[in-house]
């Protein structure tokens, strides 16, 4: 759960955007620009999704 831009070397802004878009489409939600900026680790992503009341499994 500690995967983040700091720990995965190839995580760049484009990958970040792709992740955001995939999550939005997959769970039919919209992140605000503030939330997008905060999605800096899988743990945070899971929390935000939880807040948006989506059940998801992350490893």
């Amino acid at each position, binding site marked *: 759960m500690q995967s983040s831009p700091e720990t995965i070397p190839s995580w760049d802004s*484009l990958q970040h*955007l792709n992740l955001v878009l*995939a999550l*939005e*489409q997959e769970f039919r939600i919209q992140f605000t*620009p503030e939330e997008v900026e905060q999605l800096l680790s899988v743990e945070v992503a899971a929390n935000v999704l939880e807040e948006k009341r989506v059940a998801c499994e992350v490893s």
Partner: protein
Amino acid sequence: MIDRDQLRRQIEDDLAAQHFPAARAGLERLWSAHPSAALAGFVNGCYERLRGHATFSPLRVAVLRSFTVEPVLPLLRAMAWMQRLDVTVKAGEFNAYAPELLDPQSWVHGFAPDVVILAVQTRDVAPDLWDNFADRKADEVQATVRQVLDDFRNQVRVFRSRSQAYVLLHTLELPEHPSRGILDAQAGGSQAEAVRAVNDGLRRIAGEFSGVYLFDYDALAAARGRAGWRDEQRFATVKLPLRAESMLALAREWVRYLCPLAGRSAKVLAVDLDNTLWGGVVAEDGVTGIHADREHPGIAWWNVQRALLDVKRRGILLAICSKNNREDALEAFRAHPGMPLHLEDFAADRINWVDKPANLREIATELNIGVDSIAFLDDNPTERDRVQRELPGITVIDLPDDPMGFAAAIRACPVLERLAASEEDAERSRYYAEQRQRATAQESAANVEEFYRSLFQKVEIARLSTSTLARASQLTQKTNQFNVTTRRYSEQQIAALAETPGCDVYTVRVKDRFGDNGLVGVMITREAEPGVCEIDTFLMSCRVIARTVETAMLSFLADESRARGLAALRGWFLPTAKNAPAADLYRKHGFEAGAASVAGSCWTLDLVRAEVICPDWIELTAPHAEASPASGQTGGHSQASEYFERANAQ
């Protein structure tokens, strides 16, 4: 509803077990039901494993852009795989489309794309026509429109001077809410009109260059709904102006243009009858019980027939493939003369109780095309499935359950699209009706020479011109059988050849007593070494095979070369799986065999000692022989093509 995870597992199992057709069918079902950014990675990965186990057309695409397009690219690849295109795509630097088009050292030239897409937005290339429009005076707006068009024309001109790649120019989109509100739709000073003026100018620019086309981005946004097209917040943060659904729509629409550019086009659309062409089953409901009219529910099939007529006008042949009693089906057409389609609109039919794959193979043979050039339309999913399994190269059009959606599905099918149209295309179906008459004439002639004479053939050879450019290019790309070297040329490549010194491009038109076959032959020659005219391309449409037209064509090349003082006429035969009909061309006309290689055989005609005589049953019209300094002729006036003159004038 298709279970996505189950289908994913099934596809992976099929790939592991090397059941490639099943894997491909599964991928098509998965992507049709759940196209998404998340799934694109999986789909693209699977298709990469299918390379080599199925036929795909490779295509290199460069996207030069004024906004963020990276998330669209995997969607483009997935949409393209669905249409049997293997797309290698690279985006240029952010908003660097202008220097990338203009710079001779630009990465684009090294990348050697087949297609360049210029993806730009109104707000980026013409900001004065977007946010600040209300501040502008009329003359400032006109100056902006002119400036934008001058820039585009310059960029395209410079790029085309260095590259033969196809170019797709995005049209600029109209704003959802004009600056002036409802006043904008009234006369004078309209923002919408200004943007349209740019798009009209882009259309003119596309017409000035070979292989440059408009990609109607504005129409796409309008069709999907301007209200939901853009994502202003995403544009503000990461310069991505598109919502998720818009990205999918854009990728899908790009593929509708890439298919015809890649040659992935159907030549024949084979259609079922019951519940496809009309509502009802003629054998059960009777000829009066079926409907295709402007009432409900017949309107669904009325629209299908109108869609098929439009497809036919693009040069695609229609054929019937139906499980029915033949008499019932023919009676249905006779009993409903008000339907848009009539029996004569179809170039072939198989109406019987034999299985459809076998019938489709016969239709392909009868119309002299490869079975993979067929698109198939049938309301019955079981039939569609069976045809796709047994004939994996055929394009099966996916139809929704509701017949009201059939016409739209036909119109959305990429292999039925065309980016160039010629007279031949519009008249192709009529030609096939005349062809049946020619076949009858052949049967009744006592011997073959009498048959040739009975045709009253006129062969017209001319230099390539702007009006014949599209058809000539099409012939080099589609002709497989009577083609000695099978060299494929795009419009821009053929135009470049015609302008090359020492190189000549000729088109051949054949008329006979039954009608005009149109442009059916192309010859390209070059003086490869002094004294020798080498035939780079010699091809004839199978429409005019076995009628001695090739003899008339060769006789012209021989006479023309001799008049220029050349000593020999040389041609290569490069065998392929399909061009056996042309293997004996040179030998039969007195050429001598020369060097042979792995690629093929070389044939030479000594112009001093031998000649090719045009048969006296053919009336041949050709450009006058070029006056050659060596021969001392002074009379002959060389017929420079319009194309040469235009090229020199620029």
